[in-house]
């Protein structure tokens, strides 16, 4: 391993490859900031460029840099505009956007940068040590376990049920799950619930839904409710720095989530999204009661957790890609395509046959994370200034990028109609105080939940898999605990308070 490391160091520190990392991170960050442009489309755009480079190490380093950059840039639009462009950064907006509204945009971006850096670097370290071993662990997960894992992911909605109305959160989750069934599922060859509309045949697109649930209602709210935007402090960026106390608060979160996120990322198909939701749910559950109240209203822990987890998971997703040749997500699938086009075949033999590529990629992950941190910390005050743009310019800007984001990629004008229609429904729901995040969580997880459930049903000829596979049962028990324990604690605390009131 030491020998491989040295080869990797030599390769990664060549001038050409260093330039590639820097270029990749820059391009990824800037394009990733645009709402609606996720890492998948950016990497797809960059592939022709990477292929012309010819040298496989340099090409994959460039693309990996773009990947991290895009994830990092994506958090910026989640935090500042409440417009997540990637499913993996949806959870970052839960607390990041409230922070930005409170005038702590600079601090939110700083926490995001540091959490991303830590998650990515610790992830890379874990990748280096565990990659060969982990490839076999990932294969212990069958469809049944994936189904259970999705259920655990869904329990993240408990975090929203706790702050508001449980029934409303559950209702919105169910709505999200129902919306996920629209279109041709992976398991049926007939379209469902499309009402005969061809444009619904592939289902709702994630980007359109995310924009309609988060960005559009937010922009409309700013128009309809000027008083609320006046609460923002006119874009003045104070508290860029994190206090020592805050640092102490988020350090254990970052530590836990780097590890948890990485291991979730290793599982093909789970990836950054689940890692970020789970990270959020877990950290909320183990936080103290006063801190729990803060979640969803701009808690620094609530931002640090998903930001760390999604970056660690991105790194983790390279384990199945590099050691098994299995892409765990849409983005790594595109990367795999690029590798094959460059005559590199990822798989168990990659480490033996072409160690320079394997190790150069890992080393450049560190460099990439470092570059991102160095690049972004000084830029934060300028990036955060986006919020200082007067409302009458900012809102059209958000609307423009929201519409563009949902049009690009699909090139389908009907998406725009769906976006506007849903956006209006979402705004009404928001006025009625229904939480929109559970809907999006239900939608994102719903498809995978259903696929894995019906696969398991088919494989085991019924529901027996829940009892036949201990790991499935274990995960389901965890999911139940994640939902029941917090609400039980909340109820008991409430009962105790009332008891005290009566005693008075």
């Amino acid at each position, binding site marked *: 391993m030491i020998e491989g490391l040295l080869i990797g160091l030599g390769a990664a520190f060549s001038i050409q490859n260093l330039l590639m990392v820097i270029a990749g991170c820059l391009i990824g960050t800037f394009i990733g900031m645009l709402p609606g442009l996720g890492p998948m489309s950016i990497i797809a755009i960059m592939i022709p460029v990477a292929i012309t480079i010819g040298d496989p190490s340099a090409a994959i380093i460039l693309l990996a840099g773009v990947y991290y950059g895009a994830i990092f840039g994506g958090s910026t639009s989640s935090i500042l505009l409440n417009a997540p462009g990637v499913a993996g950064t949806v959870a970052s907006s839960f607390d990041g956007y409230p922070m930005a509204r409170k005038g702590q945009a600079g601090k939110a971006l700083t926490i995001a940068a540091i959490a991303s850096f830590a998650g990515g670097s610790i992830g890379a370290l874990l990748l280096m040590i565990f990659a060969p071993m982990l490839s076999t662990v990932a294969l212990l997960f069958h469809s049944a376990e994936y189904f259970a894992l999705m259920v655990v992911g869904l329990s993240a909605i408990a975090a929203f049920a706790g702050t508001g109305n449980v029934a409303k959160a559950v209702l919105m989750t169910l709505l999200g799950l129902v919306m996920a069934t629209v279109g041709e599922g992976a398991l049926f060859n007939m379209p469902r619930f499309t009402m005969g509309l061809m444009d619904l045949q592939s289902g709702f697109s994630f980007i359109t839904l995310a924009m309609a649930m988060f960005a559009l209602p937010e922009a409309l709210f700013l128009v309809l409710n000027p008083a609320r935007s006046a609460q923002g402090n006119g874009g003045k960026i104070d508290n860029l720095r994190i206090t020592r106390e805050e640092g102490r608060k988020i350090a254990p979160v970052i530590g836990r989530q780097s590890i948890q996120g990485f291991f979730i990322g290793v599982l093909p198909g789970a990836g950054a999204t689940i890692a970020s939701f789970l990270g959020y749910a877990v950290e909320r559950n183990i936080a103290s009661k006063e801190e729990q109240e803060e979640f969803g209203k701009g808690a620094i822990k609530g931002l640090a957790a998903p930001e760390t987890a999604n970056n660690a998971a991105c790194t983790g997703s390279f384990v199945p890609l590099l050691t098994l040749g299995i892409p765990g997500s849409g983005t790594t699938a*595109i990367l795999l395509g690029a590798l094959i086009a460059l005559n590199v075949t990822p798989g168990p033999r990659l480490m033996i046959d072409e160690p320079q590529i394997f190790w150069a990629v890992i080393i450049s992950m560190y460099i990439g994370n470092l570059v991102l941190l160095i690049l972004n910390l000084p830029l934060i005050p300028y990036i955060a200034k986006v919020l200082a743009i007067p409302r009458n310019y900012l809102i059209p800007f958000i609307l423009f990028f929201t519409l563009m984001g949902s049009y690009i990629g699909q090139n389908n004008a009907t998406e725009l109609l769906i976006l506007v229609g849903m956006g209006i429904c979402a705004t009404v729901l928001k006025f009625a105080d229904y939480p929109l995040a559970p809907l999006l969580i239900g939608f994102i997880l719903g498809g995978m939940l259903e696929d894995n459930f019906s696969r398991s049903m088919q494989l085991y000829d019924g529901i027996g898999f829940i009892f036949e596979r201990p790991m499935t049962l274990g995960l389901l028990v965890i999911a139940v605990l994640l939902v029941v324990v917090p609400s039980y604690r909340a109820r008991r605390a409430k009962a105790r308070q009332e008891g005290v009131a009566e005693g008075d």
Partner: protein
Amino acid sequence: MTFDMGRRALMAAAAAFALTGPVAAEPVVDSIHFLIPGGAGGGWDGTARGTGEALTGAGLVGTASYENMSGGGGGKAIGYLIENADSQHGTLMVNSTPIVIRSLTGVFPHNFRDLTLVSGTIGDYAAIVVGKDSPLNSMDDLLAAFDADPSGTAIGGGSVPGGMDHLVAAMVMEAAGKDALAVKYIPYDAGGKAMAALLSGEIAALSTGFSEAVALAEAGEVKILGVTADERVAAYDAPTMQEQGIDTTFVNWRGFFAAPGLPEDKLVMYQEAITKMYDTPEWEAVRTRNGWVNIHNSGDDFQTFLEGQEQVIGDLMKKLGFL
């Protein structure tokens, strides 16, 4: 700041989406507009852009432009081409085997007869593979395992039930004299996840495209039990179904269609440009890079080929209860 971001995105997009090569002397066709029924980055997208790159690079076509029109799993673009036939004489639409399957199930209201058939250009055979540590080493082993425990010998694939990978698995089992309906087919939504399921032992075998199977076999991950080609393919030495006594062949083709009522002289021009393309080094470069197999069917041959495929697939789908 914000303007800068916009411009960067546009520049990157322009670089990627306007791949037009240098114009050589005497192009056969001045320009072709490629209509892609799916989003950027998919198989159709790669085929159209790769073909356009080779055609313009070799100077057979002056300029190429591309339009992605997703929706309806490809049905929207077909409808568009038919509705606007008169103004679309300069357009070629890329498509593949699913146009046959989806027309049969009625997901598409139209079928290939409603379009002008230009030519089938490339293809990929199908293959049945098992994990490298699997005790199965030939189709006979797989059939024996199936006979012993039909429900425990699940075959996975990357398509929906009734989709291509399922049909291939059913076709092979049928040709081997087994009951295609008894085959437990487990669908996965992407090839990678099906592969993970194979390695984890969730499924016994995987029905997949041959080029994908070759990449995995070269990486030492799978054994190819059988290929649906007429004879062994040069790219990788794996036994065919036929030499193992299973009389079946299957090609997942990709090719180009034009609007209905396309003038004959235009059609001949397009076909000529594509025929000449096969001999150019530009095409060879694109083809090798993507691992495609040349399977050229022009005009009437294309029609005969498609009708044959429609017949075979239609019969099988009826038997499986999808029609």
